[in-house]
């Protein structure tokens, strides 16, 4: 159960090797979170993440989970909920793809959509239904500012996040009053393994800063969290920028 100050006792991460998710998990494990489930494709990286979190005193288990295998989601994630209540689910998986080459390889582009959007719709619904049944809990969805207005430099990725963002907002409204809280997190450019080697964008952030924002959002029961907070205003300006100007601005 979450306590009155929003501290959770159990956490399920979909995409258990995400830098943001692990930074969040470390903070939660250092506080009151004692059960952590990392769902991801099996890898050494995943095992290392689990070991790292165990050092904080949490009981950590790993579950083989593939965002693309939507037929398996009900079974895989259902078992996690059957073993005990989950206070917070963090949907953190996602791939960036390679915009330039994906434009020439539609199958690869579709895979990005398959993972980021289709996989999140399926696993998000499985978790939402399980949370609704237990009558409490938070579903945290990692969206991105890239979905706020598509740029030519990353519109494949951006459009998947736009779809995910809309899905999560609608889901949050449909779950209003059910005891389940849905929080959409929109980070700007995050310096992480996903963006390694890329040029930093203005108002960039770090996995730790995003984790901090997630935890304070959980405490406040926020529905949308921007990281850094100033992006909220920047993006609301950019959203209304006329197309010719936006194209220029997006050139950089």
């Amino acid at each position, binding site marked *: 159960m979450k*306590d*009155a*100050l929003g501290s959770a*006792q159990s956490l399920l991460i979909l995409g258990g090797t995400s830098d943001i998710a692990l930074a969040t998990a470390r903070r939660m494990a250092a506080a009151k979170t004692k059960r952590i489930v990392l769902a991801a494709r099996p890898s050494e990286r995943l095992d290392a993440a689990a070991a790292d979190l165990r050092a904080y005193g949490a009981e950590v288990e790993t579950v083989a989970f593939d965002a693309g295998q939507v037929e398996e989601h009900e079974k895989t994630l259902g078992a996690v909920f059957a073993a005990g209540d989950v206070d917070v689910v963090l949907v953190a998986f996602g791939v960036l793809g390679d915009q330039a080459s994906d434009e020439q390889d539609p199958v690869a582009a579709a895979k990005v959509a398959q993972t980021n959007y289709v996989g999140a719709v399926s696993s998000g619904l499985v978790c939402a239904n399980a949370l609704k049944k237990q*009558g*409490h809990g938070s579903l945290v969805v990692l969206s991105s500012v890239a979905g706020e207005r598509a740029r030519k430099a990353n519109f494949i990725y951006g459009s998947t996040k736009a779809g995910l963002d809309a899905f999560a907002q609608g889901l949050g409204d449909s779950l209003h009053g*059910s*005891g389940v809280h849905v929080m959409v997190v929109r980070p700007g450019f995050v310096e992480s393994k996903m963006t390694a080697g890329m040029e930093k964008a203005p108002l960039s952030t770090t996995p730790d800063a995003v984790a901090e924002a997630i935890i304070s959002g959980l405490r406040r029961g926020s529905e949308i969290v921007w990281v850094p907070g100033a992006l909220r205003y920047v993006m609301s300006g950019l959203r209304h920028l006329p197309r010719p100007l936006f194209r220029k601005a997006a050139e950089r």
Partner: protein
Amino acid sequence: MPAEQWSTGAGRGALLARPGAAGPAAETEEGPQLLTGWGRTSPTVAEVVRPRTREEAADAVATAGPRGVISRGLGRSYGDPAQNAGGRVLDLTGLNRILSVDLETGLVTAESGVSLHSLMRALVPFGYFVPVTPGTRYVTVGGAIGSDIHGKNHHADGSFAQHVTSLDLLLADGSVRTVTPESDPELFWATAGGMGLTGVVLAATIRMVPIETSRLAVDTFKLPNLDALMEKLAGTDADYRYTVAWMDCLAKGPKLGRALLDCGNFATLDQLPAKHRGEPLAFSAKPMASTPDLFPSGLLNRRTIAIANEVWYRKTPSTHHHLATIGGFFHPLDGIRDWNRVYGKAGFLQYQFVVPFSADVTFRRMVERISRVQAPSFVSVLKRFGEGSPGYLSFPAEGWTLALDFPTGTPGLDRLLNWLDEQVLSEGGRVYLAKDARLAPAHLSAMYPRLDDFREVRAKVDPHGVFVSDQSRRLAL
């Protein structure tokens, strides 16, 4: 000799026994509902069922799903003990009849959903007062037993369950057992303070206390600092049945711990002024002003509370004597219906702990820290507990007890409360489960050394864990 029999039928009895008629609107809705405690934190959804009879209550327990069932009364526990996410919650305010009254002995048998307000309305005019009342009259008999509540007279009279001579308990298997402290002390003292986890209290017999008048002769002492306060409290307990201090937790330096100490006894007839002698046992239950749900969450903060404390301390004349009504002395906040709304939607946290008298150095350090970090507690109540209750999970234990309430948005609150937990643990004290909304489960067994006895009884009477609450899940009770 049973003097009056009030039953469920029409007429005066039914009128007297309806709780909340002049009080907060009882939650009468059934079906899925978002529930919180009085602090309005951690909402969860449960299916609410409101039985009107014992049979309906038994049926609701028998048909509870895999996520179990928990009792709920008027929802005055601050945290999450009367909610059950994804499961069923039994709203017992429908079991609201006073079943029998013996005016000779003061023994009253009431269903568990009867509020202390109703008991007072029914019995104060006959010269009987409830043995123990908390800071609000709007708690039910069942809740008073489940939390084994205490009042300003703990040093003289102990906790609520110590005045319960018998209770009818609906068990997980559907049977109803009449439990007395003699017939089954283990089940009785597991149920007293047991947070509703041993079964559903359907009815209880309570020994009321005789009073000559419905007014209290009160001495109020204005105390300039913590030392003066602690010394005065220790010195007054023997002379007064009811004592409580309202402390200013934001005062600093030489004013640290300044307080108003209220000490009272029920007035005798000859202490009443002539105008009240005609009706010495009058009990007026004024309809309460309601609080709209419009307050922003940050309204109560360290600045506004500091100003309120200053005004309130200054306007009180130094030591004085006065006559107070029951409501004015015991339940000042009941005058404002839904006062919890002034904290806004973010809600607030109550934190009440007790540490032994020997821990006065630690206690002082705790008050200093609260003042130093300027954690704004609007209502800070200090009291000395007498000997503890035999209840396995009962809160009271001999020592100093301080109750605080903080808006949830207070910066650094988590850290402060964790630190306070550590101090309490280091002195062998405990925090009150009826107010708890955030304790870490690891601390529970150190605070409640009889937890294993409680668990043993629970394993016997509820082996499949039918009775479950959000709190029992959170604390792995």
